[in-house]
Each structure stands twice: as C-alpha cells, then as structure tokens.
C-alpha cells in the first residue's frame, strides 16, 4: 500500500520534473533564437556581410597591420631620426608629442580638480543629513542625473563649436562629467558619516560651517580623494580621446597622423598614450592604497 503511494509520488515528481525541464528548454530555445536573430540583424546592419572593404578582407587586415608596424631595421636602430629604420625615425616628432601628451595630463588634472571642488559643494547640497531643505536636494540631484546622461563627446563637439579648437572645451567637458559623477559619489559618502561627532559639535554650539569642517571633512576627505583619483585615471584616457574632436591634447596628433595616413606614426602615438595612462594609473593606485592605509590606521 505504502509502496504504491510512494510509487505514485515518485511518478508525480518525475512528471513535474520533466515538465519543468521541458519549459526551461523551450525558454532557452526561444531566447537563443531571439538572440541569434538580433545578432544577425545587428551584423547585417553594421555591414559585416558584403562590407565594402575590398574583395579580400583578410588581406586588407594584413596590409593594414603591416602598415601600422614601423619598418625598423636592427642595424640603424639607435641612430638619429634621419636614419630610416631607427627608433628616433619612427618617433620623429617625439618632443611635440610629449608636449601634447603633457597638455593632455594638464587637461585631466585641471578638469578633475575643478569637477571635484564643484562636486564637493553639490555633495553637501544633496546629502540628506547635511542639507535640511528638501527642494534644494531634489534640484541638485536631478541636475547631477541630467548631466550624467549627456554623452561626453557630444558635449565636447558643442563646446568646441562655441569655444573654438583648443584645450578649453576639453577641460570644460571633462569638468562637467567629473562634477556629475563625483557629486553623486560624494553625496553618498556624506550620508554615511558617523553622526556622533556631528551631535557632539552641535551640543557644544557649533554652527553649520564648523560642523562640516570638524565633524564631516575629517571623515570624508580620504574617501573623496580616493574617488577623485579614480576619476583622474578615467579622465586621462577621456582627454586623450577628446583631442580627436579638436578639444586639445595628444588626440589632435592622432587625428593628424590619420589625415596623412601615417599608420606607423599612429601606432607610435598610441603606444605613447598607453604608457602615459599606465604611469598615471600606477601613481594614482599608489596614492589610493596609502589613503586606504591611512583610513584603516585611524
């Protein structure tokens, strides 16, 4: 009797399991079909089939890579830039590129500094525990959200047409996006501060400015600095790209190399940019880790 009951339960379980498995398989199949259709459509729209890149696409890629790799010769490798095949010949405009690269660094640093200072004010103006006026908090938050949705490059294009070609539109673009993203992060940091020092200050009769100076800033500054440095790393890469639309820095040199179809020069400048980003990343990582160390020691 119990055997039969058990058998019935097992059969019911097996049936249920098969049903669930079948439904899962059907779902997976539909998902896969939809995905494949979308992918095919996307590849077709982006001209992957019958792309007009010449009859022999692999050959084109090979030629292109061949043109990108400089024609270096071992026997003259270390001679000056008049010797065809030397490193100095490949990097024939190195002083100019270093100058433009330094400009890019300056753009990133300035934009990060301006954006971070503005974001500090915004971060206080929309932190629930520091800003008593709800409408101000609401307005600042919406402003930050709006600025975050604007695509950087579009802003840069508009600013280049207003301010003219040069670093100024680039710095403003990066400062705006830094302001928007750091403002939100700073507000979150502010809302997580320990409220006890604030209460103690309030009890001893401190005003808002003193409360922020002695109660909030000591708690939040290491976090602010660490977020701002992370942002600096991102801004460095973004500043290199902004130059392509005329917003100053090394990107202009990239654009120039393309205009003259000097693909090997492009690779040279690209490697220079990669090296610069790498240096900034390492420096900033060091500082951030020591800040975290400070935080932990406190």
């Amino acid at each position, binding site marked *: 009797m119990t055997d039969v009951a058990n058998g019935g339960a097992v059969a019911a379980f097996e049936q249920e399991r098969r049903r669930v498995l079948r439904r899962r398989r059907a779902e997976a199949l539909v998902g896969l079909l939809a995905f494949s259709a*979308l*992918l095919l*459509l*996307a*590849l077709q*729209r*982006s*001209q*992957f089939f019958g*792309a*007009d*890149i010449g009859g022999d696409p692999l050959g*084109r*890629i090979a030629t*292109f890579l061949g043109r*990108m790799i400089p024609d270096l010769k071992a026997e003259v490798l270390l001679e000056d830039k008049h010797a065809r095949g030397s490193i100095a010949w490949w990097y024939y405009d190195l002083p100019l590129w270093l100058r433009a690269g330094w*400009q890019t660094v*300056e*753009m990133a*640093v*300035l934009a990060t*500094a301006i954006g971070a200072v503005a974001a500090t004010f915004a971060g206080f103006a929309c932190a629930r525990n520091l800003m008593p006026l709800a409408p101000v908090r609401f307005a600042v938050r919406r402003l930050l959200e709006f600025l975050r*949705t*604007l*695509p*950087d*490059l*579009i802003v840069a*294009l*508009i*600013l280049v*047409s*207003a*301010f*003219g070609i*040069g*670093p*100024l539109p680039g*710095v403003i673009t990066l400062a705006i996006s830094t302001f928007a993203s750091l403002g939100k992060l700073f507000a979150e940091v502010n809302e997580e501060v320990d409220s006890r020092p604030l209460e103690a200050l309030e009890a001893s009769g401190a005003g808002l400015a003193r409360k922020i100076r002695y109660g909030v800033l000591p708690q939040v500054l290491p976090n602010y600095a660490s977020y701002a440095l992370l942002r600096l*790393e991102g801004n*460095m*890469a*973004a500043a*290199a*790209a902004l130059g*392509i*639309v005329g917003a100053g820095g090394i*990107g202009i040199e*990239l*654009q120039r190399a*393309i205009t003259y*179809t000097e*693909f090997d020069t*492009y690779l040279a400048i*690209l490697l220079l*940019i*990669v090296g610069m*980003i*790498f240096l900034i*990343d390492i420096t900033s990582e060091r500082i951030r880790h020591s800040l975290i160390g400070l935080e932990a020691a406190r």
Partner: protein
Amino acid sequence: MSSAMERALDVAPKAVRPSLRARAIPPLAVAAGLVALFAMAADLGLSPGALAAGAGKLGRFLATMLPPSDGGDLMRIVRALGETFAMAFAGTVLAALAALPLGVVGAKSVVAQPALHFGFRRALDIFRGVPALVWALIFVAAFGLGPFGGVLALAIADVPGLAKLYAEAIENADEKPIEGLRAAGAAPPVMLRYGLLPQVAPVMASQTLFYLESNFRHAAVLGIVGAGGIGFELEERIRIFAFDEVAFIVILYVACVAALDLVSQRVRARLA
C-alpha cells in the same frame, strides 16, 4: 587657565597646541596645489576672456535649442539610432566571444604560474585604458567609412575589460561542486558543464549586459570619425549650427539609452 584645559594639555599636548610645522603644512600644501593648477591653466592658455567669449556663444546656441525639432527627418534619425544600437550589440557580442578564451587564460585557477598571470593581467590593464574612439579612428581609416570599423573598435576596446571580469568570475567560482563531480568520476567536459558553467555563466552574462549598456551610451562617438549611426547625424547638425535638431536627437538618444538600461536591468535581475 581652566583645569579641563590643563588636563587636556597634559593628556594630548599635540591636539591642543599643534606644533608650528603641523599647523603650517596643510595651508602650504593647498597653496602649492593652487599654484600648480594655475600654472597648468596658464600653460594650456585658458583665460577668463576666452571663457567669457565662448560662454556668450554657447548661450546663443543653447537658446536656439528650444523648441527641439526633428527637422522633418524623423525616419532617418530613428534608423540612425537603430544602426547605433546594432553597432553596440554586434561589438559587445564580438568582444564577449574574444574575451572568453582570454578570461579563461587570465584566471589564476587556470594558469597558476604567478609571473605569467601577473604579466597577462597587467597587459589587459594597460589596454583597458585605450578609449574606443582611438581605435575607431584608425579602423575607419583602414576599413573605409561605415559601421564595420566602428564595430571592430567597440569590440577591441571592450576585450581587455571583459576578459578581466571573466577571469575574476572564474577565480571566484566555488571549487567544491567541481571536486564533487571529479569524485563521482565525471569527465572534464562534464565537470565544466555542471560544476563551473552554472556558477560563472550568470555573472558573465550580467557583466556583458553592463558592457552593452555602456557601448550603446558611447557608440555615438563612432559616428564622429565616420562610422555612421547617430553620432554622424549629430556631428553634421552641430557643424551647421542646427541646435534645435541636435537637442531633439540628444533627447531621443538619452531616452533610448534609459530604455535599454531598464530592459537590461530586468534581465540582470532575472539572471542573479
């Protein structure tokens, strides 16, 4: 002097009367930083005059943005948006396909040799910094105007970041299910299918969706260097100062980005 003050001086003299050095360093550091920033601004040739002149022009541009107008080209704009999405989608899928083997190789649990692991991950880090626009510029020059170069640029720009995330997903997978399967005598492919895949696939899929969102958000840049899509339409209109149409396209684009974010958020929530 009050007794509380005396006691404080006794317990923590440095807190009550900081040394001259401790008091002088913060303002000096701030001053040095400010001087450096002003020097940089001067070196870049940023001047209040240029700022004011440009701000006036910008104000006039912004004023002409209202009311936004589609310029009678709505169908073309929608098609361009579709093309931009197609580029983002194709680029993300290609990047995911290329990043998968790299992620496996980059996982510490697969290639345990520390020098190789460190070198590989550092290489990924280095190339993670190169923006898609930099790749797009050269691919469009190499493969001709059109979305093909743009897709390749997005894919290449995403590969290092995705590979790193995939490698971390594999490293974070729990070993125990795999060991269980091994103990039960499963063959290696079966071990991967039932031990590793169920753990890493949802994580990887959700990270790939993140990249899809970000690619769609940034795919407008590709049009600027000639890869087509919405960026091309935007650049064209900025060049002829048709800012009412620029505003229209930006609003539509931002709305589409938000819609994709919403859909992808739903899918990610289901995966988790």
